[in-house]
């Protein structure tokens, strides 16, 4: 019986260290529980260690850009819902932002506030779900995910009672917003936001100090700041590497300069930092929302000059970008003066954040690769468009 250590100690390690003979190529996806949709990674394994990882895209390439170039500006708005289907409000806004930049439209104050409210609520939805999915990848039996979805449902109820749909809000318009929330809606939203930190606290009590989480995420998938910048990585993933670049501050999108909030920064750039960035950003979002509900001005929600049907911006081009929950979401539009955009391009943060996936995963095990992918936060609708 006491023989076990004699054999197993080194041999177990040898699984990781001494497998230089044949490598095992595993194709993870497009149907795999933790590729967050139909992403595919062709992983070459040395034992359980990753020596090569090639992402394969396109399994959800549904030609969003081509369709948008064949349809009117307004008709593209519901399609943007389906880009990043977890955060339709921000994709709506980013598109509206680009169109407004293209046509030089103004947006009323109340609509600007509403956009920020919706964007930050969306950030809460996205980050809490992401964290839930991340824990699923880490091997929990759905519990954190379901707690996150419990809170998500409350926010989705708000979205639904405002815009009519849970996920595909189709709420923003160029020149404003579609529906004005009622005072009851605002009160409900405000109450929800006030309660949200309690959920976050409970969530953190449950998980943040968990030794297994620390061991599984700290030091895993490190991303150096210089590499991240060069690879165009944005959003919480970039900030986890310690780069201070938040478009809400840098570009001062919308009325964000009117709000007081901080941008959390990581130091190690590992999976744990990326997880904590989400948690801390949610706390900041709560602050922004609380301010917004206090200072929401009255007034119209649409620019009275705005024209939705038969909208023909004059020829030109514009690149509008927004700090979506996943990073810099940009829309690049070229107008030739016709009702349809000549070129309609989405700059998807999810896709570009995957640029360094292989570098982050190399040397780690297959279990880590799953977690690293989870911590990057991709949505395939946006990756493949």
């Amino acid at each position: 019986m006491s023989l076990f250590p004699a054999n197993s100690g080194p041999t177990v390690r040898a699984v990781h260290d001494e497998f230089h003979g044949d490598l095992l190529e595993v194709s993870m996806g497009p149907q795999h529980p933790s590729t967050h949709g139909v992403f595919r990674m062709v992983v070459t394994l040395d034992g359980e260690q990753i020596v090569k990882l090639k992402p394969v895209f396109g399994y959800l390439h549904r030609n969003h850009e081509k369709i948008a170039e064949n349809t009117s500006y307004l008709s593209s708005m519901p399609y943007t819902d389906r880009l990043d289907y977890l955060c339709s409000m921000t994709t709506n806004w980013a598109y509206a932002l680009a169109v407004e930049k293209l046509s030089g439209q103004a947006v009323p104050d109340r609509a600007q506030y509403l956009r920020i409210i919706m964007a930050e609520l969306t950030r809460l939805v996205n980050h809490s779900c992401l964290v839930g999915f991340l824990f699923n990848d880490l091997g929990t039996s759905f519990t954190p995910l379901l707690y996150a979805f419990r809170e998500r449902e409350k926010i989705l109820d708000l979205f639904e009672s405002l815009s009519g749909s849970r996920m595909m809000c189709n709420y923003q318009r160029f020149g404003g917003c579609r529906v004005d929330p009622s005072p009851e809606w605002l009160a409900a939203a405000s109450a929800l936001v006030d309660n949200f930190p309690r959920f976050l606290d409970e969530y953190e009590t449950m998980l943040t100090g968990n030794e297994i989480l620390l061991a599984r995420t700290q030091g895993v998938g490190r991303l150096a700041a210089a590499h991240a910048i060069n690879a165009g990585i944005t959003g919480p993933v970039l900030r986890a590497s310690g780069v201070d670049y938040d478009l809400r501050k840098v570009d001062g999108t919308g009325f964000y300069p009117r709000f007081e909030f901080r941008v959390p920064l990581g130091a190690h750039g590992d999976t744990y930092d990326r997880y904590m960035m989400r948690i801390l950003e949610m706390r900041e979002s709560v602050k922004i929302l609380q301010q917004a509900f206090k200072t929401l001005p009255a007034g119209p929600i649409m620019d009275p000059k705005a024209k939705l049907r038969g909208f023909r911006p004059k020829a030109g081009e514009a690149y509008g970008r927004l700090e979506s929950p996943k990073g810099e979401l940009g829309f690049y539009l070229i107008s030739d003066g016709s009702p349809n955009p000549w070129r309609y391009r989405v700059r998807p943060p999810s896709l570009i954040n995957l640029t360094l996936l292989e570098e982050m995963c190399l040397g780690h095990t297959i279990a880590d690769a799953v977690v690293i992918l989870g911590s990057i936060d991709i949505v395939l609708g946006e990756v493949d468009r």
Partner: protein
Amino acid sequence: MSMLQACLVLSSLLFCVGLAGALARSNTILVLLGIELMLNAANLNFIAFWRYGPHPGAGTGVIFVLFAIAVAAAEAAVGLALVIAVHRHRKSVRLQDANSLKG
């Protein structure tokens, strides 16, 4: 044929199988396994003699087998570790290839 003899026949047949395997196969792991079989065949004898021998009351046979199991397991462990070590250097588990003492 008495019980004892039957057991002994079984043991010697097992021994022969192990011997033949150890001699015939060139894969080091299989050779090791053949040797393990031979050891086990010897253990069968101990038990057989303990059970049907003249002095069953004494636990000598059983204790001998226990020690033999322990030592055989140690032998297997070291042997397989050797196989792995040789494989690492030679990329082969053929006995003929492990003919040099230097790695």
